[in-house]
């Protein structure tokens, strides 16, 4: 029996399966793919900013117990280079393409989107609100009003679906989720990395060039799962779960918590085939447990405690 693992994330946006790479963790250059990118539910690009961004000074990485701290700092080739060099290569893959958009001002997200609207083959935009706002240096994703303003401008710039990526570095994720829903988001993706740091005891100084970095990997999965659970209960738009998903069982936890789709980040570095394994693993799980479609299990852990 064939199971249906497709998911609808917005009107007109149905992915053939619920698995995609987290922005910035997947290399789509030639000759570096462990499997055909067309197998993915969607390709999510690195974040694109209006002008090129260099990223942070090295060192940018530090592995911690079950986690990876990074202070890469969203290096971007910029809108023009993306449109001319990268986008044509990405369009040739037979799957949906989600362009991640970054900005440092309320208007920049809409400007990047406006620069991409004439391009065919873009299924949706994911707004990376985790970059610091130039005005006060605080990330958009921790300031509901500012995020909503940037989102409303982006909303006016396009009819394509908008996915808002949320940061876990907030007191109440529900407040941010509801602000995004109110601002016109079609779906939410969470969580981005958790702020952290590491210190080199031999050199007696911070490991990362940027001092602080974002923690990803298995270490943050319980945090991500809890925040996805809370968010699903607070909004009525689809939620894409991510944060430390390392295998099929991890992915299933997010579906059972109510996520409609998932993204895989750091695990791609450890195992370049992991997304393919998860796509197959989800279908196998559904089959073995006599479900006919993925949507049958979305949120089941929520109903289990209501009964």
């Amino acid at each position, binding site marked *: 029996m064939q199971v249906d693992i497709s998911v609808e994330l917005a009107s007109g946006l149905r992915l053939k399966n619920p698995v995609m790479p987290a922005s*910035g*963790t*997947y*290399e789509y*250059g030639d*000759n*570096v793919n*462990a499997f055909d990118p067309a197998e993915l539910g969607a390709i999510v690009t690195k974040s694109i900013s209006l002008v090129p961004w*260099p*990223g942070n*000074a*090295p*060192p*940018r*990485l*530090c*592995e911690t*117990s*079950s*986690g*990876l701290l*990074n202070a*890469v700092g969203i*290096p971007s080739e910029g809108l023009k280079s993306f449109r001319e060099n990268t986008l044509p290569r990405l369009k040739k893959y037979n799957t949906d393409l989600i362009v991640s958009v970054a900005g440092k001002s309320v208007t920049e997200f809409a400007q990047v989107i406006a620069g991409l609207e004439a391009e065919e083959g873009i299924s949706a935009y994911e707004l990376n609100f985790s970059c610091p706002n130039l005005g006060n240096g605080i990330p958009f994703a921790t300031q509901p009003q500012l995020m909503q303003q940037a989102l409303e401008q982006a909303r006016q710039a396009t009819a394509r679906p908008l996915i808002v990526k949320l940061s876990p570095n907030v007191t109440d994720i529900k407040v941010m989720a509801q602000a995004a829903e109110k601002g016109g988001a079609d779906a939410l993706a969470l969580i981005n990395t958790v702020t952290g740091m590491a210190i080199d005891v031999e050199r007696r100084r911070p490991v990362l060039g940027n001092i602080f970095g974002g923690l990803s*990997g*298995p270490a943050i999965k319980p945090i991500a799962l809890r925040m996805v659970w809370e968010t699903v209960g607070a909004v009525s738009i689809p939620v894409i779960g991510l944060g430390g998903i*390392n295998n099929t069982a991890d992915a299933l936890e997010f579906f059972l918590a109510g996520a409609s789709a998932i993204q895989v980040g*750091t*695990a*791609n*570095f*450890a*195992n*370049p*085939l992991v997304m393919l394994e998860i796509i197959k693993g989800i279908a196998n799980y559904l089959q073995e447990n006599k479900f006919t479609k993925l949507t049958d299990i979305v949120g089941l852990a929520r109903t289990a405690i209501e009964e």
Partner: protein
Amino acid sequence: MIFTKGKIVEQKAVANGYYLLSIAQPDIASKAIPGQFVMLKAWERGDLILPRPFSLYRILPRQGQLQILYKVRGKGTAEMARRVPGDEVELIGPSGNGVTLPAKGAIALLGRGIGAAPLMAIAEEAAAKGLAVYTFLSARKRELVLGDEDFARYSRRVIVATDADQENGSRLLTDLLADLLSEGISVDRVFTCGSKRLARGLVPMQSQYGFKAYVLLEEVMACGIGACKGCVCKIAAPGGGGVVYKKVCQDGPVFPVDEVVW
């Protein structure tokens, strides 16, 4: 890029905390060139999530093997040292741009400590092409001068300097290279690894002695294939003024010494 597995054929301690690992992996062995590297993972530990980059000490396409000379530095290399023949390792590679050798003439290799490792593959290839190879190795102690017997097979001369044993008066390898060149020997290209000081020291020597020098850089990596953008180094912006970040894994690990901002 090949995403595959290989089997450990041999694991030999060559000094305290230093090992020579032989892996059977014919696909990568037939494709890799000197200066390239592989990402290796050989453990099932939930707390240790990333593979580690290792340079290639010898590339043996006929035997279908790769040899890796490494130093135990952290948890990943400590795990690697516990693997025994027959164990399986996961590999990604060959990664990065290898070196380009001149068509004829001579090269010099300057290796500090474990930095000698990738130079061995260069020596072997250069000797096979009929180039004259001059090898300079230094370390804190004599027993940490690695691979000097292997280098001797492919080099006209192997010159060693040690800090503690005062061999060659603990002099810098760049000074010893200058000595050789003032004997009237000329080299076309120089490759160095393992010491920023040596690489920096080669910059002014290039115009003085008429060679081009390259450094093999090391950096912490998450993916080794250009996805994570974590392993950048600082490179002088073309046209002067400012710095650009280049990925050691994809744009390197071989860089001209005068382009790196030290």
